[in-house]
């Protein structure tokens, strides 16, 4: 099944002053291309850690992640290549490089993998236009933009290298409800129209309406249900 992202028995424990904290505890999860998977849970439940484990920003203590036929937890897995071409991140606080323009932020991931500059600019402009960031706004510095604009630029950046997986960490957390709805619609459209595997972690129940699969996470443990029916 090469359209399936499968997480099996994934665990991650952090050592802190007060002792060990298990952020992710033997988590099993499935997500498919073309579907939106929502992981719901309160702050500190471990959902962001799970997202970072899937995106290879953290390494698990145990378990496996099979990303469309490739086990990224095996020794020797090319995590840089995985991060560059298979995964796109969308963060709650956008994490744009503020000194760069919107266009430059979107060009950056392509620049890192060696896409020719002209081609990268063309694709970046196309992605930004698709996200509703046109003309003058593309040349604006990221720190001069509104929250909604920043998040749309962040989504465009996540799509720059056409990854299979979009990992969105509280994408509406810093946005008003109307703007948040626009951003969620964009993410849903990416799953539906572009066959992306979209995983959203949030504590906002309102996003559940857009979910094909929903999981609830608490104290590092995951419980889930198929909502597509």
């Amino acid at each position: 099944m090469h359209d399936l992202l499968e997480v099996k028995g994934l665990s991650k424990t952090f050592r802190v002053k007060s002792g060990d904290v298990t952020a992710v505890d033997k988590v099993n999860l499935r997500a498919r291309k073309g579907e939106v998977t929502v992981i719901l849970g309160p702050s500190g439940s471990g959902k962001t850690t799970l997202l970072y484990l899937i995106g290879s920003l953290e390494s698990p203590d145990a378990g496996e992640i099979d990303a469309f036929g490739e086990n990224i937890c095996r020794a020797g897995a090319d995590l840089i290549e995985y991060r560059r071409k298979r995964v796109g991140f969308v963060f709650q606080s956008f994490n744009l490089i503020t000194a760069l323009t919107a266009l430059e932020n979107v060009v950056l991931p392509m620049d890192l993998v060696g896409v020719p500059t002209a081609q990268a600019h063309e694709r970046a402009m196309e992605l930004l236009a698709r996200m509703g960031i046109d003309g003058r706004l593309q040349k604006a510095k990221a720190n001069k933009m509104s929250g909604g604009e920043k998040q749309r630029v962040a989504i465009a950046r996540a799509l720059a290298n056409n990854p299979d997986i979009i990992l969105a960490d509280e994408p509406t957390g810093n946005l008003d409800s109307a703007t948040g709805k626009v951003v969620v619609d964009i993410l849903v459209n990416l799953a539906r129209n572009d066959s992306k595997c979209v995983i959203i972690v949030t504590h906002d129940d309102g996003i559940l309406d857009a979910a094909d699969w929903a999981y609830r996470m608490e104290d590092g443990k995951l419980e889930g249900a198929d909502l597509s029916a």
Partner: protein
Amino acid sequence: MRSVKRGFKSFRRHPLRNLIVILLLFVCLSFSLSMLAVKLAADNQVEEVKRSVGNYAEVKVSSDYRMAVFEEERSQRESERAARARTMTAEELAEQRTRFLVPEELTDAFSRQSEIIAYDKVLETTVNLSNVKNVQLETMLSMRQRGPQGEGPAALSSSSFTFEGNTNGASASDFLLGNKVLVEGSFYTYDDYLKKNPVVLIEKTLAEENELGMGDTITAAISGKSGSSAKMQLKIVGIYETVQAEQQEGGSNTETFNPMGEVFYAPLSVVQELNNTPGYVSLGSYYFDNVDSTGKLQQYFETEVADGDKYELATDLADFETISDPLQKVSKTSTIGLAGALGACALIILLAMGIIIGGRTRELGVLKAIGATDRQVMAQYAVEVVCICLVAVILAMGVTALISQSMGDWLMGESKSTATAGEEQQAQSQGPGQFMGGLAGGDKLYKEGGRFSVASIERQPLDLNVVYQGSLFLYGILILLGISLLGMIVPVVWIVRLRPARVLSME
């Protein structure tokens, strides 16, 4: 290449921040490079001085020994001395003649030291010439005789001349120094010395006054001999002019009086024969590799040659120290200044990069999260650091060209005033007797020229000439690389240790 472009763009995107860092670095680097320029100039000048001063020594009878002999003779009454002279054997007379001379085998043995690169031996003596008169001296003596003070000094005679013998005419110190210049004929050679060829160089005025020219012969009396074997015919092979005497003439209004005119130059073996002291010389003259060998040669001399305190090894180490001490002090001071300023540069770049990176941690996390390798991020930051340092170094090198000479002059002024104070203190502690001894020229070295030549200008401390050298440019590049590498330590450590998940989780 893309990382380089990103780094350069990033450098251009933060002009104010970079300007502050560049300004701080520029100030410290200007000081560092100026100190470096001064140090290089001072070291170069010391090396230059080493090539010409401090590498000379001569073996001769010590002044202490001479004084002891004089004291002994003074302790005898005139009648005792006359009686002793009358009863002297031939051996004793020979010993008397050579008591202030050095055996040639001794000077030859010393010349075999590996540090010696040039060797000459010199004998200076007074010779009576039967067909040459010092006309000017004769006039002067006759005027004194006619004057109220009666007769002139007995030692002065218009037919007695100083003869200086060495192994090669061209290497006689007066000719090397340019005090005297050959204007006609040629120098006697080493071959003339070996074959005892009776040839001689004569002063131009003296030759003209006695109507002598090239190829003419003069008759010299051999000391301590009588009869037909007591004369030697010397052929004139060269005529020289006394440059220094002409200069004295112009400055002192002494008309044509030329005290140096009486000196004749001849092969050493000929002068030895005229002096009746074969195998003996006044001094052995040596040039060795450099001043650093002085100690070794001195030690060898004291253990193998000195023969108690009879002989001494006189060197121009004091001249070297007089000239080089201020330069060496400047070199040391500038080294300390250089080290301090470079330390400040290091501190500035480390702090600046710490602050810069600290403010861009999230950017680093984002770069790593979107797939930048550590190498790509490092390259980007390296370019930023190099750009900052490069601008600062270029500006500093420009300013160095303007201020380094002033810095050098200031440091040299400080060193000279310290040295002068030290010398004055030393002079006071030595007392007037020694000071007068110095003026009398008793310690004058053969390489400094004849008895009438002025003291060498090399004794004066030099001015520091800070020229903008190519090596300074190379050192500038090295400093640029050094501070850039140092500046890279901070980002490298951050980049390697940075966990993007942690950084991106921070709100």
